[in-house]
């Protein structure tokens, strides 16, 4: 079997994407590889939704480029747009329609739309077919958007906060659908979520964005396996090898430090407290911590 080139492996390529809104400046470079689920995390207002909108061609970048499967998204035709499915956090189908009414519309828009499967999934997730979407709960609307994105054989999913408003059970079912989606070769997902545990269990790699800039990119396994929080007193901190410390934060007892080499400190400093860092902790330290 021939090995794929770097270009063939890249599903989404964002190259120095720039957009300015008043004091906010986005300058972002990132990639989503074929066969992988890539997450984007960051605090509110960091630029996540702007990146998603640029990927979907909903805003005009002021610099840089966004390409999907090697083609600039601004040049996308209707056929190209059929290759992806999208979920946007603040926008959806018109609330005046019901699922029964959007089905023929989806059939018209996507030749690959699987009506039977879509209706079955709607029933499975407890979505009434005849009720107006405006009368749906937030969770029901979220489920409908994800099921729609999965309904037409897309190769790439662009999901901005797809699990927002869902309870634990529904979230788990949706995440399971996304894992099933990835069973087919040649697919990829680009996802953001405020619920870090969703991303920890789902993503292959994660980008962190803050004030419009990507400040960290790492494989999820590395983030969860090698990153850690060190809790040290002042004297311990003074003796620490600081080469592998990324951030520090002053505490009443001394310092909290973020490291990307947990094992190094575990082996060489047996006396210090080392805690695993989840994504929330990581975001907090990367943003609130002082750069070393």
């Amino acid at each position, binding site marked *: 079997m021939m090995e794929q080139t770097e270009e063939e492996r890249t599903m989404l390529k964002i190259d120095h994407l720039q957009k300015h809104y008043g004091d906010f400046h986005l300058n972002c470079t990132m990639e989503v590889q074929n066969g992988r689920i890539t997450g984007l995390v960051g605090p509110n207002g960091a630029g996540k939704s702007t990146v998603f909108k640029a990927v979907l061609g*909903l805003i005009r970048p002021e610099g840089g480029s966004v390409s999907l499967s090697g083609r600039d998204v601004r040049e996308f035709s209707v056929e190209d*747009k059929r290759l992806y499915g999208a979920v946007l956090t*603040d*926008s959806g189908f018109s609330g005046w329609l019901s699922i029964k009414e959007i089905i023929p519309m989806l059939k018209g828009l996507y030749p690959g739309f699987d009506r039977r499967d879509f209706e079955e999934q709607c029933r499975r997730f407890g979505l009434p077919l005849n009720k107006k979407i405006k009368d749906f709960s937030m969770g029901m609307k979220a489920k409908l958007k994800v099921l729609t994105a999965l309904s037409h054989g897309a190769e790439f999913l662009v999901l901005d906060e797809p699990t927002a408003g869902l309870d634990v059970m529904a979230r788990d079912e949706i995440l399971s659908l996304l894992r099933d989606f990835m069973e087919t070769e040649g697919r990829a997902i680009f996802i953001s979520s405020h619920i870090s545990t969703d991303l920890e269990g789902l993503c292959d790699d994660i980008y962190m964005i803050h004030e419009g800039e990507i400040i960290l990119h790492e494989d999820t396994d590395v983030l969860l396996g090698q990153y850690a929080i060190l809790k040290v007193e002042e004297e311990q901190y003074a003796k620490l090898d600081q080469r592998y410390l990324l951030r520090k934060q002053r505490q009443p007892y001394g310092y909290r430090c973020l490291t990307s080499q947990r094992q190094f400190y575990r082996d060489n400093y047996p006396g210090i407290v080392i805690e695993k860092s989840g994504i929330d902790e990581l975001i907090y330290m990367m943003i609130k911590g002082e750069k070393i």
Partner: protein
Amino acid sequence: MTGLLIKDFQFMKKNWMVLLFLVGMGGILFASSSRYVYFFVSYCTMFGGLMMLNTISYDSFDNGYAYLFSLPVTPRLYVAEKYLFVILTSAAGCVFSGTMAAFMTDREGLMPGEHLMVCLMLWMVLLWVACLMIPLNLKFGTEKSRSILLGIWVVVVVIIGSLALHGGVNIQGQLSRSMERLGAVGDLAVTGGFTAVVLCLSMAVSTHIMNRKEY
């Protein structure tokens, strides 16, 4: 395109009670005197066209454009569908009212061929109005565009009134003489050609507006 048309007809279906009421009102007026026959035709044609503005409101409501354009819909396709929709709905209104008028009245004494021509002319003139309203709606939204349209009418009336009153220009007379010179087929061809140009120009402007927008 099919998906978008289905969506807009679904929206239209939502307003079938309003549609029935307004057509009924027009019908009552029409039944009261055959003098209102062409008012009824233009009223139904216009009403069919107005349905399109309603669909634009539905689309834009609650940041709906962002999701719509994440589907396989480009601004160009969206705009083209709106024009097709307005052509279809206004034509349906014209055919419905024109047929009723043809069979239920003396058509103000016009022959069937002349009646058909008047209906076609009315349809095309009302398409000009739609060609003005679509870009205004897309650019300024439903509320603002109504005020702007009203402003445009006032300006047009003032200009025509001033020309007639102070400039001694008899616009209606000149128009009638020109139409007589061209003959029925010529009138239809000129109006049709002008309508096609207006449609193309309006579509280009609307596409430009939608391409410039961010969602």
